[in-house]
């Protein structure tokens, strides 16, 4: 992502390459597919295409609320119509849009014969731009300048009264600042300059108490130089640069969604590399990055601050993490820089089940539907899986290597847009925590085979070798959770194992359609009594639940057979942190031999009767083959 464009729908996944074909292929009653297509960062042309598909629906699609929107103002709003219609799908609305004639505001509302009045809108938006004033005429004329704002105020009051009687909501846009100054820095001190008029107008809008769409803030976020396009104004009276239409339309429709109670209510947070840098199960409380002193730690702390601030205004917080429950809670209890506490978290789900099932359980426990949730996770594969299984959950795209940007991206996405704020909102998050049992919820896993197949996973087996040796040694010494024996070796020892003819060892890299996950597994087998004894088997928890272990076993079994072995021997040594893999060998079809104790267990796999697992991962091992040849 280009850093400077994070504000522009970057939280939505890119549109699929076959977007236009998918649009054309839409069934005219498939509301879910229509909405799913809208959940991408669409261009103006794509929004047009989607709005055309909407015309095929003869009635309001299931799950969407109808809303009739009238827009009045001094610019040409025709260009916005299709974009508004399509963007509204993201916010649960089925929009009908009517544009007032350009320049007509009061008349459009008061004249019963105007197209706006005849349309009987649910909501009317007043959208004015600085071009309603000529640039210099009021400078130094205090009376006229004050009157200019008062006249607008009277118009707005008149419109508001009329619309109120019709039970129509009246929303005012704030006015973006102009890209032109007259004096320079002095402008805002001199009554009647453009900048001062705009300031005065906006102050009047805020004071009116009417609902507001803060387009001025949006224009500031984008930057006025980018927001305004003088050529397009002169030519077609476009109120702002045409390529910002998708962004503007999303802002307007999210506010309408908020009016209709469609804003999100709960922020669900991943933990490792989201609330803190690093993996708590591997790095420990002392090893994770959080807090002052490192840029990364500060970035994650800023994410916590953002979450806490949201909670203060009434947004519920929940946790959904692949972790041991006790381990996951450690930083909440023991880390001095951790500002989120367990008491802030309404539901705390740390387990090894898939996240979609956990999110469903969280929503249910809070008496919410999935469309009330926002799920923040650094891992693109988890994000994609949740989107696929639970399309109603909002899952922002975030740059996984730059957590510093997350708070502003989450804010720009506007999931928690509100049209009012009261004292009672502040207490809400606390009440929920009291209602929900603090113990984590039981979750049934779902079948995600289709998703895994679509991930295009490719595993590359490589021998240790000098290039990967440092990373292999690092994994051997750092991995605590998915680690069967937790044996630690130095880099020199790793090298010795490489050269040991009685040892069979390799590392595995995993690629998927989101990119290269790097080395995610290390396996060392040693020949003992004509069996292969699995001395070390560890994996990164990042790729958990992807059937990586099945693919690895297939490979080990093949190589062991080729070496003339009939049996694999597995060994589990319990530690405080590796409870996750207690059943690892059992799940892979090994038989428990020898007496089990709470500290360790031994397992055997008969290679003659072993049938390889059917796993959705393509395996390549060129480097090893080369070495053998």
């Amino acid at each position: 992502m280009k850093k400077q464009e994070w504000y522009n729908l970057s939280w939505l996944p890119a549109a699929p390459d076959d977007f236009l074909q998918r649009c054309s292929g839409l069934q005219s009653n498939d509301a879910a597919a229509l909405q799913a297509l809208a959940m991408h960062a669409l261009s103006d042309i794509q929004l047009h295409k989607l709005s055309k598909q909407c015309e095929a629906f003869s009635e309001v699609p299931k799950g969407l609320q109808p809303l009739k929107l009238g827009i009045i103002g001094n610019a040409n709003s025709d260009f916005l119509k299709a974009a508004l219609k399509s963007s509204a799908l993201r916010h649960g609305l089925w929009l009908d849009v009517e544009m007032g004639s350009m320049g007509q505001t009061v008349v459009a509302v008061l004249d019963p014969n105007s197209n706006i009045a005849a349309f009987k809108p649910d909501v009317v938006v007043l959208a004015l731009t600085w071009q309603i004033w000529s640039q210099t005429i009021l400078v130094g004329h205090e009376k006229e300048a004050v009157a200019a704002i008062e006249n607008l105020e009277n118009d707005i009051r008149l419109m508001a009264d009329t619309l109120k009687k019709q039970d129509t909501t009246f929303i005012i846009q704030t006015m973006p600042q102009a890209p032109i100054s007259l004096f320079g820095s002095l402008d805002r001190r001199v009554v009647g300059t453009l900048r001062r008029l705009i300031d005065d107008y906006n102050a009047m809008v805020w004071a009116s108490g009417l609902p507001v769409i803060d387009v001025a803030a949006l224009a500031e976020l984008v930057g006025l130089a980018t927001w305004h396009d003088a050529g397009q104004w002169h030519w077609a009276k476009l109120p702002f640069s045409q390529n910002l239409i998708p962004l503007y339309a999303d802002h307007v429709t999210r506010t309408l969604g908020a009016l209709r109670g469609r804003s999100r209510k709960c922020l669900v947070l991943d933990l490792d590399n989201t609330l803190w840098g690093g993996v708590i199960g591997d790095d420990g409380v002392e090893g994770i990055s959080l807090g002052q002193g490192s840029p990364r730690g500060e970035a994650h702390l800023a994410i916590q601050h953002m979450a806490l601030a949201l909670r203060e205004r009434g947004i519920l917080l929940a946790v959904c993490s692949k972790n041991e429950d006790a381990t996951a809670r450690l930083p909440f209890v023991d880390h001095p820089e951790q500002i989120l506490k367990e008491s802030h978290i309404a539901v705390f789900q740390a387990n090894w089940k898939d996240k979609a099932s956990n999110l469903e359980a969280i929503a249910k426990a809070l008496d919410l539907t999935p469309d009330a949730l926002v799920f923040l996770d650094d891992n693109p594969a988890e994000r994609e899986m949740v989107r696929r299984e639970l399309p109603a959950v909002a899952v922002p795209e975030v740059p996984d290597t730059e957590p510093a940007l997350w708070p502003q991206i989450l804010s720009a996405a506007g999931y928690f847009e509100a049209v009012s704020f009261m004292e009672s909102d502040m207490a809400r998050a606390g009440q929920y925590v009291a209602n929900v049992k603090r113990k984590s919820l039981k979750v049934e896993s779902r079948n995600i085979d289709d998703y895994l197949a679509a991930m295009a996973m490719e595993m590359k087996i490589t021998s240790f070798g000098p290039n990967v040796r440092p990373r292999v040694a690092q994994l051997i010494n750092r991995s605590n959770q998915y680690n069967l024996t937790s044996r630690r070796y130095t880099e020199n020892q790793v090298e010795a194992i490489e050269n040991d003819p009685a040892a069979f060892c390799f590392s595995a890299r995993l690629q998927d359609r989101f990119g290269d996950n790097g080395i995610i597994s290390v396996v060392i087998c040693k020949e003992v009594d004509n069996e292969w004894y699995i001395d070390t088997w560890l994996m990164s928890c990042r790729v958990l639940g992807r059937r990586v272990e099945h693919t690895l076993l297939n490979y080990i079994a093949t190589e062991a057979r080729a070496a003339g072995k009939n049996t694999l021997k597995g060994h589990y040594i319990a530690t405080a942190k590796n409870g996750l893999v207690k059943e690892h060998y059992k799940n892979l079809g090994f038989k428990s031999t020898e007496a089990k104790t709470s500290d360790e267990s031994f397992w055997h796999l008969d290679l003659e009767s072993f049938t390889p697992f059917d796993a959705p991962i393509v395996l390549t091992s060129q480097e090893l083959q080369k070495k053998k040849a």
Partner: protein
Amino acid sequence: MDTQKLQTMLQDVFRDVFDNNTIVIDRNTSADDIGEWDSFNHVRLIIAAEEAFNVSLSTADVADLRNVGELIDLIARHTNNQN
């Protein structure tokens, strides 16, 4: 860029903007030939063309265009200036 290649690319822009994959343009194609080519879509068309060819056309120029040939020549002038 030669004008033939430019015309092919421009045809794709037309198809996108008018959402019609059967549109075929030549130098004489004008607003009379494409039903939906009104002043509103003219603006969308020009802006989409600016994006597709990475050029910035002056509003004075685009307001006076009479047919596709003139648009091609205008874009060609801008892309050649860049090179």
